[in-house]
């Protein structure tokens, strides 16, 4: 109970800090929307096909959540660990779970905001369609499948200094996005790439959200895969938080 109450307190103040420097949010909001505008809308074969256009919206929504998770957690945590405010907050009577909950909820809120412009542009400029129920299910699936990305970001944040985190976040973000079929649809992949792709949490998230919105066969392998990723990365994040003793000097 205490952990949840404190988690909400931390969420509120993290959002308050972010909102007072609005440029940080604008970056997260604009990048996926611009990608959609430049890569999807001009390709009329995709944009005019209701199924493909809807999948493109879903791909870039997953990308928005992925990028926001990696940057939001990875960079903000590794930078925060280098300021003296972080060790102070660590020494307050607060469990690790409450701080992580605060980070998840505050970054998650911004991730959700980042999805909105992609959906709005998609609805206006393409033939994408979905039932209201499909949209709601899709958003729930998007939120749940964002957890492994959040945990990757948290692990990077606690595992390395901010300069290394910037590089690693970008490599992992583009790797997961391309290989996960978030920029190019996986039907274009050769077999070997498709095999790797199916093992990645980004591809699994894409398939699960598409299933939630458009229906079809239950993606059993993807569901099992993403649960394994979520648990493993969640444990890693907690271990790295516990091990952390602030900034390291040698």
């Amino acid at each position, binding site marked *: 109970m205490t952990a949840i109450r*404190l988690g909400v*307190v931390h969420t509120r*103040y993290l959002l*308050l*800090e972010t909102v*007072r*420097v609005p440029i940080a949010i604008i970056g997260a909001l604009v990048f996926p929307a611009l990608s959609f505008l430049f890569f999807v809308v001009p390709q009329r074969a995709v944009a005019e096909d209701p199924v493909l256009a809807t999948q493109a919206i879903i791909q870039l929504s997953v990308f928005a959540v992925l990028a926001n998770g990696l940057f939001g957690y990875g960079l903000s945590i590794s930078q925060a660990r280098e*300021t*003296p*405010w972080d*060790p*102070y907050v*660590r*020494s*307050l*009577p*607060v*469990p*690790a779970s409450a701080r992580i909950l605060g980070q998840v909820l505050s970054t998650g809120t911004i991730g959700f905001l980042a999805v909105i412009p992609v959906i709005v542009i998609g609805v206006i400029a393409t033939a994408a369609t979905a039932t209201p129920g499909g949209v709601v299910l899709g958003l729930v699936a998007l939120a749940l499948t964002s957890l492994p990305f959040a945990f990757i970001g948290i692990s990077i944040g606690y595992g390395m200094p901010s300069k290394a985190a910037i590089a690693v976040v970008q490599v992992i973000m583009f790797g997961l996005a391309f290989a996960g079929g978030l920029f190019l649809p996986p039907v274009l992949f050769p077999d070997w790439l498709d095999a790797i792709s199916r093992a990645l949490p980004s591809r699994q998230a894409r398939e699960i959200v598409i299933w939630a919105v458009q229906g079809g066969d239950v993606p059993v392998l993807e569901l099992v895969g993403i649960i394994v990723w979520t648990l493993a990365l969640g444990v890693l994040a907690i271990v790295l938080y516990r091990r952390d*003793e*602030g900034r390291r*000097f*040698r």
Partner: protein
Amino acid sequence: MAAIARLESVSRRYGEVLALDDATLDVGEAEILGLLGPNGAGKTTVMSLLRGLIRPTEGRVELFGRDPREHTSRTALGVTPQETALPPTLRVAEVIDFVGAHYPDRVGPRELAERFGFGELLRRQTGALSGGQRRRLSVALAFVGRPRLVLLDEPTTGLDVDGRRELWDAIRSQRGQGATVVVTSHYLEEIEALAERVVVMSEGRIVADDALGSILGMVGERWAVLESPRAAEIAVLPEVVGARVDGERLELSLSDSDSFVRTLVASGLPFTSLQLRGATLEEAFLSIVNGATR
């Protein structure tokens, strides 16, 4: 007297560097304990261990009888952020609210601000405060949860004389409400103004642990510098405790400077350029360290 915090044969290494070397320390209920030492002596390492920020390489650290790395052991602990660390976009009242939310019984922003003399600043963003105002807010944050033990790391560094005295008064009045305070400083004056018991640290070791009066006696030595063609004879006068002779130039540490001057003049030995001064803190540390190893 029950120990509310203790270090038991604790050592802490950072890679090759031994920051704390086999330190044992008990902090009792309702005392003000001063940790005195030059930079790099290990004071901050002791504080970080008590806050649960780092773990000891060897030995045992206890806070209220438990491991300080467990967050529940820290409900009655108050600590200060460095004043440069306050989140610049948050308002003063918001920072106090945020910190206070972690404690079961807390002091409200208005009351806390009145006690520490920044009642008019509650609506300001912390980024807009002066250094002294931020420092006062930082120290006040340690008291927001009505703690039983407060750790203050260099609480008044960078403050002017008035600001320092005001803050000392505020800290002493908190002590009157039954809180134990551990304060580190490299200013002797600050330790003198606040502490009842003093622990002196040097190069990771605790070299003295005694009542304030006894420590002041140890560091109260006087030094003299003078020149004389008969330096060797001056160096053996009875009040001279230690001497360094460099040609005609003499550096002396003295047991009693007034009596030394009388003896020197009465002896009729020639001398010029006599200067008397108190031992600097570094010299005082050296004499305590040497005394401890002797």
